[in-house]
C-alpha cells in the first residue's frame, strides 16, 4: 500500500520528465532535419516548449508530491515561455523573411497595405 502511494507519484513525475525529454529531442532533431528556416522554426517553438513544459510539470509534481513542498514556481516559467515563444518566433521569422523572402513570393494581404516587414505602416500621410 505504502509502496503504491510512492510509486504513483514517481511514475507520474517520471512520465512527465520522459515526455519532456522526448519533445526536447524532437525539437533537436527538427533542428537538424528540416531543410529551411521557416520549417525549422516549427520544431523548437512547439516541441521545445512542450519539452520544457514536461520538465516543469515533472518538477512541480516532484516537489509537491515527493518532497512535500508546494511549488508554483514552475507555473511562472511556463507563463513566461508561453508569453515569449510566439514573439520570438515572430521575430525570427521576420528576420528570415527580410533577408531571404521576397515580397513577391508571398501571398497578397488582400488589403491596401502589404506585409509589415516590407511595407510602411499607415500614417497620417498615406491613410487617406
Amino acid at each position, binding site marked *: 500500500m505504502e509502496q503504491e502511494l510512492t510509486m504513483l507519484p514517481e511514475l507520474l513525475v517520471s512520465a512527465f520528465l520522459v515526455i519532456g525529454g522526448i519533445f526536447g529531442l524532437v525539437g533537436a532533431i527538427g533542428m537538424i532535419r528540416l531543410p529551411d528556416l521557416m520549417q525549422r522554426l516549427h520544431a523548437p517553438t512547439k516541441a521545445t516548449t512542450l519539452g520544457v513544459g514536461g520538465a516543469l510539470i515533472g518538477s512541480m509534481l516532484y516537489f509537491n508530491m515527493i518532497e512535500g513542498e508546494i511549488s508554483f514556481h514552475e507555473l511562472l516559467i511556463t507563463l513566461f515561455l508561453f508569453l515569449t515563444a510566439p*514573439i520570438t518566433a515572430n521575430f525570427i521569422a*521576420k528576420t528570415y523573411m527580410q533577408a531571404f523572402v521576397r515580397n513577391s513570393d508571398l501571398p497578397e494581404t488582400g488589403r491596401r497595405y502589404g506585409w509589415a*516587414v516590407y511595407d510602411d*505602416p*499607415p500614417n497620417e500621410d498615406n491613410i487617406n
Partner: protein
Amino acid sequence: MVSASGLLPVMVLLPFIGALAPGLMIRAGRNACATFAAVPTILALVFLGVMAPDVMAGNTVTAQFSWLPQLGLNANFFLDGLGLLFAGMILGVGLLVIIYARFYLSGDDPMGQFFTYLLLFQGAMLGIVVSDNILLLLVFWELTSLSSFLLIGYWKHLPEGRQGARMALAVTGAGGLAMIAGMLILGNIAGSYDLSVILQHGDEIRASDHYLTALILILLGAFAKSAQFPFHFWLPHAMAAPTPVSAYLHSATMVKAGVFLMARMWPVLAGTEAWFYIVSTVGLITMVIGALIALFKDDLKALLAYSTVSHLGLLTMLLGLGTRLAAVVAVFHIINHLTFKAALFMSAGIVDHEAHTRDIKRLGGLASLMPATATIAVVAALSMAGIPPLNGFMSKEMMLEEVAHADWFGGEWPIIILATVGALFSVAYSFRFIGHTFFGPVRDDYPHHPHDPPVGMLISPALLTVMVVAIGLAPGLLAEPIVRVASAAVIGGELPEFHLKLWHGVTPALFMSIVAVLGGALFLWQHKRLDRAWIATPRPEAKPIFDGLVSRVALGSRRLTEVAHNGAISRYLAIFTAATILLGLAAYRGGGLAAPTREMLPVPPLVGIGFVLLVVATGATVLIHRNRFLALILTSVVGLMVSFGFVYLSAPDLALTQITVDTVTVMLMLLALHFLPKETPRESPMGLRIRDGIVALGAGAGVAALSFTFLLRDVSTISDYHLENSYKGGGGTNVVNVILVDFRGYDTYGEIIVLGIAGLTLFALMEALLNGPASRRLRNFTFPPDRSRDRHPLMMVIATRVMMPIAAMVGVYIFIRGHNLPGGGFVAGLVISIALLMQYMASGFAWAQERKRFAYHAMIGWGVVIAGLTGAGAWLAGEPFLTSAFGYFKVPPFEEFELATASLFDFGVFLTVLGAVMLMLYSLSRLARYAGETVNEEPMDYDPSRRVEVARIEEQEKKDEA
C-alpha cells in the same frame, strides 16, 4: 685656526636674494636695475672684506647648517685662502661687470632679466668656492651651468645665442653629472661628503680601488667646465652672449670653476701618476691647441675665447704637474689672467659696441679714433702676451720655469717645446689682436664710425688694466699675500720657497720667453700667408660634430622611441602578455610544490557536453570573429555555458548575475555595433597572427596550469568565519549576499561607484561626441535600404505590456529575497532595467523615455548617496562606516519580515545599477536619434483598432461627398 661666522652664508645668499629685485624692477629703469644688482654685490664684498683679515691670518671661517643629514648633504660653508681669492674675484669682477653692463646693454634689452640671471650666477659661483660639502658644491656647480645657460641665451632672437647656450649647458651639464658620480664615490671612500673631512683623507682616497674612477669622473666635470680639450669647443660658441657675460663668465669666473675644483681637490687627488699624466697632458694640449686656433680667429671675442681656452689649459697643466710650486704659479696666474682677460673682453665689447663689428679683418687703425680704449686693450694684451713688466709676464715666466723641470713622458724636452710653442702662439695672437685692431691705417668702411665710449663703460676695463700694471710693478706687495694664503689652501701643507718678482735672473724660462716673443712677432709678420694655409688645411670643426652628435642622439632616440611606442596597442599587449607568462614561469621555478591533496571531482556527461559547447563556442568565436554579429552570438553561448558552470558548481548567485549582465552587455554591444562596421577586415599578416596565437596559447596554458595546480591542493580560508557569522551577525542566510552587503560592503560600495562613474562617463562622452565632428558623421549615417519596415510591432508591444510588470515583480522579489537566497540589489536592478529595456525595444526609445518617472542621473546620485548614508548612519551609533543593524518586525497584515540596514544599502545598489544601465542605454540611443532615427509618438507602428475609426471616417466622407 677655525672661526665661525654668520656672515659667510649670508654672503652667499645675498646675490640670490638680490636676484629677485632686478627681476621685479624691470619697469623701474636701467639705473635702478643696475643699482639693485650692484647693492648686493657690494654688500657681499663688504662682508668678504670683514672676513678677509681673519683668513689672511691663516684662519678658516666656517658656518654649518644641517640640510639633508640623511644624505650627508649639509649646508656647510668655509672660507679659506683659495675661497677668499675666488670670492674676491667673483664679487669684484661682478661689480665691474654690472657697471659695464649698465652701459653696454641697449634700451631694448630686458635689463631686469639680465641682472637677475647675473646675480643668480654670481650666487652660484660664490657658493661653489665657499662650499664645505661636495654635494652642496654640486648643487652650486649645476646652478652655474643653468644660470650661464640663461645668460648665454640672453639674446634669444639670435640663433647663435640659443645654440651656444644649449651647447654650453649640454657640455657642462654632462660634466656635472659625471662629477656627481665622482663625488658620490669620493664621499663614500672618505665616509663623509664634507670637504674638510675629505681633505684629511687624501692618502686613503688615493689608495682606494675606486680612486681612478672617481678621479676621472671628477676631472670630466672640471674639464668640461673649464673648456679643456676635448670639451673646449663650447666656450667660443658661448661668445654669442652679451660681452659683459663673456667677460664675467668666460674669463673670470665660471670657466675657472673647473680650475678651482682641481685646486680644491689638489691635496686629495693630486700626486699620483694618473693625476699627473691626465691633467698635465690635457692642459698642455689645450694650451697649444687653444692658442693655435686663437691665432687664426677673426672675431675678436672668438680670439679671446680661444686664448682663454689656452690659458685655462695652462692653469690645468700647472695643477697637473703636481709640484707645490706649480700650484703656486697656477694661483698667481689665475689672478693675472683674470685681470687682463676681463679687461680685454670689455675692450672687445667696446669695439663691437662702437664699430658695430668684431671682425678683425674689418677693423684696424682704431688707436687714433678711440685712444682710451686702445690704451687699455694694448696694455692688457701685452700682459697676455707675457711682455714685461706686466703681470702676465711674471706668471708665464714662472710657468715656463716649472715646465723646464718637469718630467713628462720620459723627458723634459717634449714639454718644454710644447710649452714654448704655446707661449709663442700666445704672443702671436696677442700681437695680432693689438696690431690688426688698433694699428695700421684708419679705414673708412667701418659699419659705424667708432669713437671712445662714455666713461661708465671704460671704468671697469681701466681699473683692471691698472691692476695689470700695478701687479706687474709691485707683485710682492699686491699679489704675494693673497697668493700665499690661497696657495697654502691649495697645497694643504707647507708652502714652497718662492718670491714674486719681475726679474728671476737668467733662467731657461727667459730663453723660452725670448723665443716665444720673437717667434710670435715672426708669426704676425707672416700672418696673411699662414692664414691662407690655415684656411686651406682641413680640420675637424667641433660645432658640426657636436651638433651632429646631438641630433644623431636625438634622431636615434626618436627612432627608438617611435619604434617602441609606435601606438600599436596590440603589440604592447603582446609584450605585456608574453612578459607576464615568462616572469610568472620564472617565479614559479623558484619555489617547490607540495603534493596534491585533493581528489578530482567526477565529470558527469552533461558537464562534458557543457564543456564541449564552451570550448567549441569559444574556438568558433576566435575563428569567425570577423563576422562581428556572429561573434556576439557566440559569446552569448559562452556566457550561457559559464553560467551553467556556476550553477553546477554551487554558485547560483553568480549564475544569476552573469546571465543578466551578459544580456545587458550584449545589448550595449549591439547598440554600438549598429554604427560600427559589421565585418572586421582581414589585415593582420600571417606572422602576426602566429605570434599572437603563440602568445595566446601561452597565456591560456599558463592560467590553466595555475588554476589546475591550486585546484588540487587544499588551503584553509577565512570564509569559515563568514559562514559561521552570516546569520548571527549579518542577518542573512545567503552568505554570498551577506558578504557583499555586510562583511565586504565596502567593496560593493566601491563597485556601485564604478557603475555610477561608468554611467556618468558614457553620458559625458555622448555629449562630447554630439558636440564634436562625430555629429557630422552621425548626421550622414545612412541606413540600409532593405531594413524591415515595422519598427514597433504590435505583438511585441502587447506582450511587453504584460511582461514588464511581471518582470518588475520578479525584480522586486529578487531584491527582497536576496539577503537569504540568491539575488540582491544588483541583480534586481539589472532585472528591472532589462524589463525597461524590453519596453524600450517594443515601443521605441523616444516614446518610452517620455514616460519614464525618474531621471537616471538622479537614480545614480541617490543610489550612491543612499548607500553612503546608510554606511555613514552607523556613525550615529558610534560604529564604523557600513556597520549594519537588523531586526525582525511584525506588522499585522504582513508576514514577519526582516529589516536590515544592509537592505537599505542594497537598495542604493539597486538604484545605482538601474540608473547607470539606463543612462548608458540612453546615451547610446541618443546617438542613434541623432543619426536620423525618427521619433515616434505612438507606442506601436499602427494600432489596428484605429481601423474602425478610419473606416468610420471614410464612411463619413463618402456620406459627405454624397
